[in-house]
């Protein structure tokens, strides 16, 4: 079975995104499992700062050499920061998905929405369920 890094301090979505709480903001990216499944990332399209996203709705696009996928907002809120470096260096998602490959930061509007996120054991199970 392939080895996927799942850091202890993060929460996760069913769509294989990770979120990190920083004050009132949630930083969002895709997981190691997601980037390994997608392969070489060639393009990431992200929303501008100030746009509003709704939990579960697409907020951007990630494109690899073999597939193109939507990115889904883990919570509702305003986009307060965007990793504009990804426009020039989408490969950062492959190289450092939990660091330089971060995508957006969302200002949280509802604490309740955080409850639907998965913790590490739950996400590991979610990954294992789809692995051979």
């Amino acid at each position: 079975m392939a080895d996927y890094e799942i850091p202890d301090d993060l929460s996760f979505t069913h769509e294989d995104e990770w979120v990190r709480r920083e004050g009132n903001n949630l930083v969002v990216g895709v997981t190691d499992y997601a980037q390994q499944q997608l392969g070489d990332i060639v393009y990431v399209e992200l929303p501008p700062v100030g746009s509003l996203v709704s939990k579960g709705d697409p907020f951007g696009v990630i494109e690899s050499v073999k597939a193109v996928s939507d990115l889904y907002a883990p919570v509702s809120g305003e986009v307060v920061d965007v990793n504009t470096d990804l426009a020039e260096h989408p490969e950062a998602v492959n190289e450092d998905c939990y660091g330089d490959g971060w995508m957006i930061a969302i200002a949280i509007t509802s604490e309740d929405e955080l409850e639907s996120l998965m913790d590490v054991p739950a996400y590991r199970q979610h990954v294992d369920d789809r692995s051979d």
Partner: protein
Amino acid sequence: MLEAVGVGSLEALFASVPQKHRLQRALAVPAAASEQELLGELSALAARNAHHASHDWFLGAGSYAHFIPSAVDAIASRSEFYTAYTPYQAEISQGTLQAIFEWQTMICGLTGLEVSNASMYDGASATAEAALMAMRITHRNKIVLADSVHPHYREVVETYLDGLDARIVAAPRAPDGRTAPLAGLVDAETACVVLQQPNFWGAIEDVAAAAAAARAQGAKLVVVVSEALSLALLRPPGSLGADIVCGEAQSFGVPIGLGGPNLGFMATRMSFVRNLPGRLVGQTVDGEGRRGFVLTLSTREQHIRRERATSNICTNQGLCLLMATVYLSLLGRVGLRRLAERNLAKAEYAKARVRATPGLTLPFTAPTFNEFVVGVRGDAQAALARALEAGIMGGLDLAPHAPEIGSAVLVCATELATREAIDRLVAALAGGRP
């Protein structure tokens, strides 16, 4: 068939139609004609049409009469090209793919931009797609649309944007025929400025100034071209700061049809390629290192992205694109420029004749290419009727489009116009004996 749908007779099939709504007699149509009789009748009907082979032709306004070398049809009619389907399977589509790639290359050269798509329906829909594309790039929703863009194109833009969260603001015409300075119209909400070059009145716009006005507010500049031949003579809009150049390439070897088919084109900067609608062909190498062509960046398109594609209402015009590619290849860079110069010379001769003729005026002073506005005394329809009487299609009556400039006709002189025909046109429009 009646048996298949489960009724016994024709009468039973129509039983639900009340008697009073039925025709109780045989249709009053003539007896069937033989093929020979029918062709004779249709030929006689077709002979009543005016076209650029039967009349001296000065009508442009979006569709331009140019000479088409016989080789264009001969090559485009080869069944390898003529019957080819969308080249999804690169292994069996290299001819079509290479033709599209060469078209894209030529459009990039003519527009001064880095990437062209594989064509669109027509100039009007390409303009609307360009406005949508600028909205995607900027995440803004206001379109500054010059009044001097072809009225049909403006209508299509309005139709495409209807129902979207978008707002169209008109940029008015200045007294010289160009678009008035844009300062004040472009703001931080503006996605793009849409300008036509040359504009609907034939005037050559100041593209660099419009680009600066757009850029100052972070907006994009869309330059629309309805007479593609002008690109052979004018500075490429891309080199003047246009972000998207689109329009109509019917002038390149596609005959004027009643309603089409036409040939839209669209080019932009490489940094916007992910927002470009439509098909795109790229050059690559196969497993043995040989040059080959493939559809590329297809993830923008609806067969992959579905409802989130860059467009769900466009396609390329494979056959017209092929005709244009053959036409441009036959003329070459120098030939195309000479042809454009000849168009300019014909139009300048006609303008000089108009200037020297009492009763006719040139209401706009801006420089022009092969099309310009002529002010006439009295009714423009009467002037055009006099021309038609003399075997001349004199141009477009501008009354529905610009009543404020008085009686006026939009006149286009291409390489097909002879001096003698121009002299007769001027005489007819002025009201003298042609």
